């Protein structure tokens, strides 16, 4: 039986003595990339240590207070902005369970075309679609994935699907990793009833039962290597919300797995100057840019009642566009509406009559992560010309669905076309060219791609097995290994790749123990 340690239950203070640990595998990060691997390796009988820089929050601590949970659960309390025109908000989770704790729970498989494009265009021929579907079914069964229940899904989704049906577009309710969800509509701020099977209530507790040790509030700063092999990590305890630094921590392990997410992993590699012979670490940053369209109906919608992300239209997936309904509680909607004084308050007073359609792109633009001073970082991301055209097309389709669903007014947040009152305005939007400067509220919820997987050391960071080209026994298993963005919510795909990578880590560990018998020198003895 392992244990879940946090700053409190270890009664850590500034002066408590440093912690010395050793294990078969050390996993940095407990999100969609780290937790499934921890569970898989722990059930194989290996000793696993998981280090998570965020804090641990039980389900009871989620009290529908969005701004409070944004400050506790999000990296930089939800205020990470990508530098570019327009600036893109990049919310990422920093808690036990990683971003899965604060995502909407949509569990979709990778589209067939995207996987084929990776196998052909990006040289990942070894990834076999049948093997991946085995992982997917195992995860879907473990996380109780099933389609959103229409009664609970809420009026916004119902209206959206009505409009899409009238236009003959293919769409439906989204599969979600939620068990008996009551539709509280605050999935992005911690599921109050524990229905959403995010990592902190599914893989992490199960891994702890199987013997894995999870340390929250523990920030990793150095990766220890010995003649080209990763042998352990170093870091220090730091309470997640205060600046207070705790004692140092050192973990020596046969295999080191980085699962810190698309922003955390490259920062660690760049600061340690590791695994970057190809110079690709930090580049090729993708985030699925999202803009929203707010239809205003004349009947009561009550958006906060119901599942926040429950329906989508995947008709235009081949054109890299997917439309998903997302509804927010009043304070988050107030944050998302980029309007000034009076028309902002006017829209907010109509809150019970508004819906929301998100337009997400599988973009071709790329960005970059750069480490900044004192553990800070900068995100550069500039949307390119083609994606601006796709985003405009997505907004046009979303507005057309909204009008078909009976909306009286549709707010699209593009300067010059702020409010569409009739099909005439929609036609004007269709005919006019839109530039990237006109987008006023763009966010990117799925960061991917900064440590690209590939078959050629000069243009990729990790092999298809997840092991880095330069450093042996150093694996990367999170969204940063995706060569391109995938067009749908990536959490299930990250978990599938994590399970696949766990298989290779297990092989490596079995190989490692045989090598130790022959040479008789254990790793830990070499360190001490």
């Amino acid at each position, binding site marked *: 039986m392992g244990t879940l340690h946090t700053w409190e239950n270890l009664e850590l203070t500034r002066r408590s003595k440093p912690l010395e640990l050793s294990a078969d595998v050390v996993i940095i990060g407990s999100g969609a990339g780290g937790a499934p691997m921890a569970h898989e390796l722990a059930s194989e009988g290996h000793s696993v240590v998981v280090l998570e820089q965020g804090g641990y929050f039980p389900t009871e601590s989620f009290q529908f207070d969005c701004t409070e949970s944004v400050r506790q659960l999000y990296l*930089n309390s939800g205020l990470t902005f990508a530098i570019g025109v327009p600036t893109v908000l990049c919310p990422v989770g920093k808690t036990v369970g990683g971003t899965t704790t604060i995502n909407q729970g949509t569990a979709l498989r990778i589209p067939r075309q995207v996987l084929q494009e990776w196998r052909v265009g990006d040289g990942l021929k070894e990834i076999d679609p049948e093997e991946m579907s085995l992982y997917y079914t195992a995860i879907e069964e473990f996380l109780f994935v099933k389609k959103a229940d229409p009664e609970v899904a809420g009026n916004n989704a119902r209206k959206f699907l009505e409009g899409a049906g009238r236009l003959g577009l293919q769409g439906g309710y989204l599969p979600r990793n939620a068990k*008996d969800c009551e539709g509280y509509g605050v999935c992005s701020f911690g599921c*109050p*009833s524990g229905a959403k099977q995010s990592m902190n209530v599914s893989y992490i507790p199960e891994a702890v039962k199987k013997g894995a040790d999870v340390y929250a509030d523990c920030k990793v700063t150095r990766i220890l290597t010995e003649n080209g092999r990763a042998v352990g990590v170093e870091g220090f305890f730091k309470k997640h919300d205060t600046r207070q630094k705790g004692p140092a921590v050192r973990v020596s392990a046969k295999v080191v797995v980085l699962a810190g997410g698309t922003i955390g992993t490259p920062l660690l590699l760049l600061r340690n100057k590791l695994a970057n012979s190809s110079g690709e670490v930090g580049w090729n940053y993708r985030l699925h840019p999202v803009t929203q369209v707010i239809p205003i109906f004349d009947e009561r919608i009550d958006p*906060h009642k119901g599942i926040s992300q429950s329906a989508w239209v995947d008709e235009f997936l081949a054109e890299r566009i997917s439309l998903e309904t997302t509804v927010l*509680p009043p304070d988050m909607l107030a944050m998302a509406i980029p309007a000034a004084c009076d028309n902002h308050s006017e829209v907010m007073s109509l809150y019970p009559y508004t819906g929301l359609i998100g337009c997400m792109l599988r973009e071709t633009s790329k960005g970059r992560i750069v480490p900044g001073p004192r553990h*800070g970082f900068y995100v550069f991301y500039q949307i390119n010309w083609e994606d601006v055209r796709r985003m405009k097309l997505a907004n046009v389709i979303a507005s057309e669905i909204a009008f078909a669903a009976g909306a009286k007014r549709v707010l699209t947040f593009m300067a010059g076309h702020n409010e569409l009152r009739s099909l005439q305005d929609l036609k004007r939007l269709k005919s006019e060219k839109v530039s990237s400067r006109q987008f006023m509220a763009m966010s990117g919820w799925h960061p991917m791609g900064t440590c690209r997987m590939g078959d050629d050391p000069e243009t990729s960071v990790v092999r298809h097995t997840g092991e880095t080209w330069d450093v042996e026994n150093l694996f990367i298993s999170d969204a940063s290994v995706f060569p391109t963005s995938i067009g749908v919510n990536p959490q299930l795909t990250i978990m599938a790749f994590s399970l696949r990578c766990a298989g290779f880590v297990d092989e490596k560990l079995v190989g490692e123990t045989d090598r130790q018998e022959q040479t008789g020198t254990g790793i830990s003895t070499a360190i001490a």
Partner: protein
Amino acid sequence: MTTREKLYARTIAPLVPSTLGTLDGFPEIEVRRVAEESARYVCGGPPEVFIVSYGGVLLLKLLALLTCRKPFKSLTLDEQKAMLQKSSESRFMALRMLPILVGLPIKTMFYNQDDVCRVLGYDRESLIEDARQHQVSIDR
């Protein structure tokens, strides 16, 4: 409340009434509470966000000084609103984004208060109570 948060709260307080716009049917705006909570929220983020946001507030006040030749505080509520409205519809992206960037924390904090949410039909207590009864256990 760190010194930075106090400074931010003080400078943003005069902006609160005009940024929130005309709110008929909503409870009275508690300027101090909204300003303090926005300060706590912005200062929780990385230092760059504080610099940009605080700089935005000063820029907005400077803009008021230049366009209406009177400091922002002394403008009437309607003049303030007219200025914010004009700036948010300008052709230049920077001027357009300024009132939105500055208004972001103020709006979030105001609409986060329980009494305001209740007006919008979002009753937090009953939801918490409901969630407590529906705790989900993941035994197979």
